[in-house]
């Protein structure tokens, strides 16, 4: 059986020392091993950004696509081969700016993949511009006088879009993060995990210390019931979204694959391509 070390490869990440994304990488590798997966069972599809590089750092199948499109690529892959464990990953710009349309629709569609957002509330790769996750007033290269646009609330948005699995974590708590990734992998349907993953270079406001001060851990909240959507929304609003843990899970909702008429258990990628002569004649008859 594979251990988390089997999911490591020899590529040295080009992230800055201290970047939150290192923890996300470690959590992924641990979660895969803990779930009894082998490297060839896993495919990671990532976007473009510092975070997007993550698919190249895991010893598994990896597809590093274009900015904002990790989700449609990942969904196409999962529909092609439902035996694979497909994880999509990328930054907050990738998922909540350029790729926001795909995020909402992936939530609605509910293909059985896990989506991990490395949310540093800034654009890292392009050297520090504002992101839809930046707080109002946040000063960046592109907002020298401070951001004047409202912040997107991804967890609340996911709830209203009908998400079946909504969780949030922070890079500094590897244990909780790993557990949530595992829960996401196990969940049948689309799972969204937003990870506060500090950018130590371009975000001097939302730092590890800042999160320590502001985050509320739902694991410590007595009586919190993640199957209660109303309560989940209330909790998020109460704390301005600054919570960690499993926020909401709906175990009843069926994954997209389960609802496609005639969709086989056996992966499409393993099926015979050729249609037989009889079937062909039948198809053609419609046009006679």
């Amino acid at each position, binding site marked *: 059986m594979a251990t988390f070390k089997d999911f490591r490869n020899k*590529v040295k990440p080009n992230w800055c020392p201290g970047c939150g994304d290192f923890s996300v990488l470690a959590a992924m590798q641990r979660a895969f091993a803990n779930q009894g997966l*082998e*490297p*060839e*069972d896993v*495919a990671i*599809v990532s976007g*473009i950004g510092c975070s997007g590089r993550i*698919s*190249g750092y895991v*010893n*598994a*199948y*990896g*597809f*590093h*696509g*274009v900015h904002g*499109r990790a*989700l*449609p*690529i*990942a*969904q*196409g*892959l*999962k*529909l*092609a*081969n439902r*035996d*694979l464990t497909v994880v999509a990953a990328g930054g907050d710009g990738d998922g909540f700016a350029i790729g926001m*349309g*795909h995020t*909402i*629709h992936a939530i609605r*569609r509910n293909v059985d993949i896990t989506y991990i957002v490395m949310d540093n509330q800034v654009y890292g790769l392009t050297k520090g511009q504002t992101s839809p996750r930046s707080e109002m007033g946040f000063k960046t290269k592109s907002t020298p006088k401070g951001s004047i646009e409202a912040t997107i609330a991804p967890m609340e948005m996911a709830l209203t879009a009908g998400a079946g699995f909504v969780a949030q974590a922070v890079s500094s708590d590897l244990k909780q993060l790993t557990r949530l990734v595992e829960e996401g992998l196990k969940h049948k349907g689309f799972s969204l995990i937003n990870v506060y993953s500090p950018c130590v270079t371009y975000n001097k406001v939302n730092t590890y210390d800042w999160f320590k001060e502001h985050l509320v851990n739902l694991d410590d909240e007595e009586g919190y019931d993640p199957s209660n959507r109303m309560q989940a929304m209330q909790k998020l609003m109460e704390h301005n979204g600054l919570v960690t843990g499993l926020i909401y899970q709906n175990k009843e909702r069926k994954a997209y694959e389960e609802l*496609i*008429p*005639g*969709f*086989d258990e*056996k992966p*499409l*990628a*393993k*099926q015979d*391509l*050729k*249609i037989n*002569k009889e*079937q*062909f*004649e039948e*198809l*053609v008859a419609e*046009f*006679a």
Partner: protein
Amino acid sequence: MIKQLSWKVGGQQGEGIDSTGEIFSIALNRMGYYLYGYRHFSSRIKGGHSNTKIRISVRPIRAVSDELDVLVAFDQETIDLNAHELHEGGVILADAKFNPTLPEGVSAQLFAVPFTKIAQDVGLAQMKNMVAVGASSALLGLPLEAFQSVIEEKFSRKGQQVVDKNMQAIQRGVEYITEQTGGPLNALRLEKSDGKKRLYMIGNDAIALGALAAGARIMAAYPITPSSEIMEYLIKQLPKFGGTVVQTEDEIAAISMVIGANYGGVRALTASAGPGLSLMTEAIGLSGMTETPAVIVNTQRGGPSTGLPTKQEQSDINAMIYSTHGEIPKIVIAPSTAEECFYDTIQAFNLAEKYQCPVIILSDLALSLGKQTVEPLDYDRIQIERGNLVTDDQELEELENSQLFKRYQFTDNGISPRILPGKKHGLHHVTGVEHDETGRPSENPLNRKKMMEKRLRKLEQGIDFKDPVHLDCKHEEADLLIVGINSTRGVIHEAMERLEEKEGVKVNHAHVRQVLPFPTDILREQMAKAKKVVVVENNATGQLANLLKLHVGMADKITHIGKYDGNPFLPSEIYNQCKELLVHGHV
């Protein structure tokens, strides 16, 4: 007895024009006639003039004709807009309900037939279409039985009574006209057909069926005219083969999903028109860079921007060749008949896997939506070739020691072994960033140069596409070579025949079916044999003509005949302009 005739039905969009044309033409196709139908419609759903023009012939035809023999009109507007097409002695069958009148200067025979009233008598005003079908068939002297099976198939779901009533409406139409005319009109009596069984389909049906036959099991698309029929057909059929269609949030998602599915090992396609293709551009580059197969259908319509969404144009040729930044290997093919839509789509999937690159199937509105007679499709011609796809487990065992799979191995022909995720010994990375042989990002200048050359090398020796140019070139020395693309195949053919017959000039015809890589050598040979070259295309700037100038040269020989008013060419337009060119040296 005549060899061919043209029939048109028109009225307000949404009042059953399509089904009238449909029933009439299916019956004729089953009788063994060759048909070609073209629908004129607007982007409104209800209201607005719409018509379907159908050409019926005892020999193969692939174009609308200049003239019209019979016009069926459900409103006066149809007469006012279309009566000028009728030749001397042509016939109008119009609903008596609106007191039809002939426009000034039109010398057609007008029959006011109480379509609506008869239909009401039989039971339902909507069946006025059937009365019109009956009246038309009486003029042509078609047997009533020809409609029986068509009506049964269309209405049996609704019960025998509905079938009977519709047949009755047809019969009453026949009777009414027979009473007026005493029998079929001599000028409209078609020669007997060969009675052979053939198919009748629109290009989009053929593309969709081709995709299914090629083994495509996932389609991801966003609806758009005139491509939606491809999606609709596959929504109906794919579930029977375990596959599915995903209606995505936009075309970027559609092409991305297609890339994901192909990466996963399933043949997948998307289909759209100009606006959608514009959105797909970045991802087409991803397919090229990551060497992931993708099949994309572009059913061209009037551009730019939203342009003329329901009209014919061929103005995306440049966009298909050049769009996406950077330099990738890409294949663009352009079928010109519904048959070719079927076989070429199968080839497209083979090419995409063989050369591991995006393949664009370029169609146009007239081909995608025009309904035409198709010779029986040959099951034995469905070949599935998956290229250098490593599936052999033995081979994989050997790879075990070599750690990472060299997905982008440098090879002589540039094509590297491909492996699907899930294979134990095939781990590798895929990225749109420049990469080394195992797919790891690399900025090394030497590697970059080699990798770029490897990718481009795949198509350098030409590709394995059957008949890159359709040649109808019987003259060793020709006065004229006409070059076209997509749906103009039949109309050029007719203009060519007319030029030879009436003007006594020698005309050759080359129809470009492979746009990228451009079939320069074949075209050069044909152009060298001709004194003049005329490029017929539905665009304003002469995109195909410019490609000829760029790749072949001989610019001073080349003249471009463009039409970009939204309508397909008529044979007379090509004939007249070619004649002009031959006589005066310019058009």
